[in-house]
């Protein structure tokens, strides 16, 4: 099943699609207001881009610097080549504690590794504590956005879900009261949590610290009430210096939601006395992406979600239509690296308008990479035959002025003479599924030009003297 087919399902509810579109655009507008209020914002983007480029260019050295600093801080450091190893390491840590209750704050990496089902299968209770993530965990769904995981749902959906799982009153849909119900429910989970798992926004090589940004405070509550903290991070989360956080904390929340900063920007450097802190450093395809010169810039991503909020395709197709942990434009350039066949339709889920590139706080050339993935997918024969052959045909046609003029004549006639039902038949013409073809003109521009009187004088050429 490809992106377009999954998007069709989302589009069945027109009102909801419109709401989704407008709500995300509203977030994009909030982002703009926050960005315009910072005079040096474009300089910050350039600095962030250069810091990330530099970090990738010395990544092996920074990883070792980070590891050494973390070990000196009394932190256990683990390395996982892939999702399976990541999951096994975490299960082992949980088992060593004899623990059965895990609380988790937002981590796209653990989503990517499918950690929750793995732990649950092994008898561990895993509670997602970010409100949006808890909602979709109750519903057994995947997040549809990396910053706003439940943005595909309406408050009535949440009300139904909480009625079923938390016993709130039937029909209750007030966000304030629903949030309060979740607060009470999750407070008990926080207090009982034995192991807390968090993601990582930034890992500082020089100090060995991991930085976690939340608005709800769920990472701080979970980690600081449990005996053991496990922080899971991809290798690309590194930044060299503590002072680099000055750049990234100024960009992240403004780009993500238009806030000046997240409510909590928490720096976990050492475990509290008598407690444990573990960091799991994960590859899972990232070193492979680092080795692709055209696509390695995707590793600079700081997961703000701005490219999703601005994307005209994402806003109207919903995060689930991408069927990948990270949806939207950035997901469409990350996913083919993981599985080119499965995600082959995603780089085509774009108009190549370039809005994603314009808003990216670390200046990833997202739309250029989307275009380049299309070339790679074409070469690898991973595009549908109809697309492949029609592109080949169009390539030949557009390269020949004679064939182009002839087919133009033919098309203008055919469009006038053939019945609408045929020219707009969905089976033949996917373009016309939701669009009208233009009324055919009587003649082409070239035909018209040739009929014009020839007395128009060319302007005199300036004389060139030696």
């Amino acid at each position, binding site marked *: 099943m490809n992106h377009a087919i999954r998007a069709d399902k989302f589009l069945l509810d027109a009102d909801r699609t419109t709401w989704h579109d407008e*709500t995300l655009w*509203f*977030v994009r507008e909030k982002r703009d207001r926050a960005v315009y209020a910072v005079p*040096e914002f474009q300089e910050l983007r350039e600095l962030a881009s*250069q*810091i990330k480029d*530099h970090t990738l*260019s*010395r990544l*092996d050295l920074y990883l*070792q610097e980070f590891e050494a600093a973390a070990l000196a*801080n009394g932190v256990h450091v683990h390395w996982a*080549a892939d999702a399976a*190893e990541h999951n096994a*390491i975490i299960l082992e840590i949980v088992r060593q504690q004899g623990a059965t209750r895990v609380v988790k704050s937002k981590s796209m990496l653990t989503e990517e590794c499918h950690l929750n089902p793995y732990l649950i299968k092994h008898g561990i209770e895993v509670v997602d*504590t970010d*409100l949006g993530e808890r*909602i979709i965990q109750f519903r057994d769904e995947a997040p549809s956005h990396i910053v*706003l*995981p*439940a*943005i595909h*749902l309406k*408050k009535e959906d*949440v009300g139904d879900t909480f009625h079923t799982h938390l016993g709130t009153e039937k029909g209750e849909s007030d*966000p*304030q009261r629903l*949030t309060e119900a*979740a*607060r009470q429910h*999750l407070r008990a989970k*926080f*207090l009982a949590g034995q192991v807390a798992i968090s993601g990582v926004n930034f890992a500082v090589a020089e100090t060995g610290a991991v930085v976690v940004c939340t*608005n*709800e*405070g*769920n990472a*701080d*509550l979970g980690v*600081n*009430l449990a005996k053991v903290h496990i922080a899971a991070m991809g290798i690309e989360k590194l930044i060299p210096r*503590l*002072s680099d*956080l*000055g*750049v990234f904390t*100024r960009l992240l929340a403004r780009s993500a939601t238009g806030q*000046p*900063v997240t*409510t*909590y*920007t*928490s*720096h976990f*450097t*050492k*475990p509290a006395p008598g407690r444990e802190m573990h960091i799991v450093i994960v*590859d899972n395809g990232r070193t492979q992406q*680092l*080795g692709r010169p055209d696509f390695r810039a995707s590793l600079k991503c700081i997961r703000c979600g701005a490219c999703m909020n601005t994307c005209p395709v994402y806003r109207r197709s919903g995060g689930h239509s991408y069927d990948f942990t990270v949806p939207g434009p950035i997901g469409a350039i990350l996913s083919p690296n993981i599985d080119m066949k499965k995600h082959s339709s995603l780089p085509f889920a774009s108009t190549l308008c370039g809005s994603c590139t314009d808003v990216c706080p670390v200046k990833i050339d997202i739309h250029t990479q989307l275009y380049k993935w299309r070339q790679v997918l074409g070469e690898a024969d991973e595009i549908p035959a109809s697309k492949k052959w029609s592109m080949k045909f169009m390539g030949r046609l557009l390269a020949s002025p004679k064939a182009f003029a002839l087919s133009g004549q033919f098309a203008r006639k055919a469009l006038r003479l053939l019945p609408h039902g045929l020219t707009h038949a969905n089976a033949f013409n996917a373009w016309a599924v939701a669009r009208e073809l233009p009324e055919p003109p009587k003649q082409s521009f070239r035909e018209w030009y040739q009929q014009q009187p020839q007395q128009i004088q060319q302007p005199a050429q300036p004389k060139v003297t030696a």
Partner: protein
Amino acid sequence: MSTSSRDRILAATQANKPAETLLPTVPDFGGEATPERFTAVLTSIGGTVVWLDGLAQLGPTLQQIFPDARNTASPLFPAAIPVDALTPNDILADIDLAVLTCEIGVAENGAIWLPEANMLHRALPTITQHLVLVLDHRRIVATMHQAYAQLPSMGGYGKFVAGPSKTADIEQSLVIGAHGARSLVVLLY
């Protein structure tokens, strides 16, 4: 844990990394480091700023803002609940007001640096129902760059706090009081 995975990841990273580029120097962009700016931004994100006429006014001011607070925790006055790093979770859970000293205020975004040494217990600033942070107004800086420049050592744990806990995960409706403190009052002196 696997030593071979570590070596394989490092080897692949070394083999696949691009040619080295320079690490830029981050300039100090200057900016407005005033209590007025700090107050305006923090208020816009749900916090409250109250001027304290000297630290002696702390008690009466708290009494005025939180007349019903019973289970208080603070190193600044004889609070109802003594809290230290070993206080068990069920006692922390009952605290309704924590009053702590903080170190740096950032005018551009209303963030306030709270190091572990000032927290009594790492969980206290988030598990308390309401949080009050006491800040010397001379410690207000303009930007995050300036804040980090004043933090040479991070200690074991510390955080910037910018307003009360909040969420917009249900239909993008802003709700104050998600999991952490339901309100944040900054007392400037």
